[in-house]
């Protein structure tokens, strides 16, 4: 048992190395970074973080990202819940085909859609809003949410529904007060995955925004190209993007493995 645990330890060290390097860079001054190699920050500085928290073009990037990610998570889970219920409880005309078609949207390369999305959202007049990015991310998040929720709902016996109806519950009341609480874990996992894929995606988010709703990731690419070699600042911005994910993951740690397995193990 002891010998075996070397493998996960080595793997985790390998995962942490680039992250350590990013964090270390973020505490160095530009001078120190350009002057040569140092394993630890020699002149420890918080200057890069101060820049980010005082410059609106930086911190608004984070706020924008968090806004559209939240909107997307709420929309995706809200519409996926009834759909997943339909797929898990009923047979209807074209159900299998529909389910497969939904999943194929997970396979479309975002690069394929970038330009048409830009034109579509400009045409309906919501280009450069948080809603545009949130709606665009629905393309791949809704199918995933339906897939995960359907797996969890399949584990709830149908007798629960029937008993509730016999007891005189109306459908909305049953769904809201009995059914959803009994698949809490599934809702959490689905929300987690929607958050994750919306948070990490850049290509569509960048294409659909200009100024008002620009995500943090796009702010970073601009800095990398325009302001020359501000590596410390870039590293600090990158470090800050890891934090929301880390917080979310800590909350759902017990469900992660289960969620990846879509409740179908």
């Amino acid at each position, binding site marked *: 048992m002891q010998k075996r645990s070397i493998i996960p330890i080595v793997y985790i060290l390998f995962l942490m190395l680039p992250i350590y390097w990013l964090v270390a860079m973020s505490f160095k001054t530009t001078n120190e970074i350009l002057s040569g190699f140092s394993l630890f920050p020699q002149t420890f500085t918080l200057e890069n973080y101060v820049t980010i928290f005082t410059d609106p073009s930086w911190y608004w990037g984070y706020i924008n990202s968090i806004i559209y990610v939240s909107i997307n998570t709420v929309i995706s889970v809200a519409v996926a819940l009834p759909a997943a219920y339909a797929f898990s409880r*009923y047979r*209807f005309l074209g159900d299998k085909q529909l389910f497969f078609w939904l999943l194929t*949207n997970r396979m479309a390369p975002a690069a394929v859609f970038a330009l048409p999305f830009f034109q579509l959202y400009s045409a309906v007049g919501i280009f450069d809003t948080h809603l545009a990015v949130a709606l665009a991310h629905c393309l791949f998040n809704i199918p995933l949410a339906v897939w995960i929720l359907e797996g969890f709902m399949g584990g709830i016996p149908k007798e629960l529904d029937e008993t509730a109806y016999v007891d005189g519950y109306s459908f909305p009341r049953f769904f809201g007060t009995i059914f959803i609480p009994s698949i809490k874990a599934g809702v959490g996992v689905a929300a987690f995955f929607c958050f994750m894929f919306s948070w990490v*995606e850049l290509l569509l988010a960048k294409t659909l925004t200009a100024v008002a709703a620009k995500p943090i990731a796009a702010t970073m690419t601009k800095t990398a190209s325009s302001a020359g070699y501000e590596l410390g600042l870039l590293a600090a911005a990158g470090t800050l993007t890891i934090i929301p*994910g*880390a917080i979310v993951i800590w909350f759902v740690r017990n469900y992660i493995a289960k969620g990846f*397995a*879509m409740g*179908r*193990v």
Partner: protein
Amino acid sequence: MKTENQKAWFFVLPVLVLVAFNALIPMMTVVNYSVQETFGDNVFFWQGLDWFEQILRSDRFHAALGRQFLFTFLILIIEVPLGIIIALSMPRKGFWVPVCLVTMALPMLIPWNVVGAMWNIFTLPDIGLLCYFLNHVLGITYDMTQNPLAAWVTIVTMDVWHWTSLVVLLSYAGLVSIPDAYYQAAKIDGASNWAVFRFIQLPKMKTVLTIAILLRFMDSFNIYTEPFVLTGGGPGNSTTLLSIDLVKIALGQFDLGPAAAMSLIYFAITLLVSWLFYTLMTKDDLN
């Protein structure tokens, strides 16, 4: 047993409307472009299937497609076995389980361009940790910006770093669902470690591994941001994968027709290979 009820369509309607809005309209735009030629000003000419023929015959497309298949093949044969080995050696209960899960899942929650930027900083000549270690401690000449082989090793390592955890978490979910009684029975029979793996653990992991391989195939085949930020497709064209090439044609040169035709061919290949994987891996279940 599921009951037949056509009213269930009302439940899926919101999903259908939202996904169709995002999928069908842009897809029709792409189809529309793929059969027309434009010189700007919204003037279009019917072009038929010329663009498709041009793309399918072009050496540039063949080269990008070849690189894409090589990349996907490499990351699959590294990540899948590695992920299974790590999952097998992880603790099953106790304090270390959540610690392992959280730290391993961390790379997957980092925005993709930050992953690229992070690896860029990690491999910078002279000031990057990896580059410094290889050049000055091990004495290997390593320069990702000049040497195509080094660039390939870097993007594959980056993807292994980024996504092996997905295979680990899925395999682990399969492993913990095996009841202890199975292992006790194997012990009584005097089964070797290999036999336990082959006849107990692997069959239990099959469903989740199918999901893992499918997800890894789709996502690695569509990969864009990370290699774009890290290498920009270079040196030369050596790491220009399909998506990078597509964006170059569509947004860089604004050749909408060829780009649209290429998009459709690209999507068709992804669909076809995903379907092949899926049928091959679930074939045994049907028989």
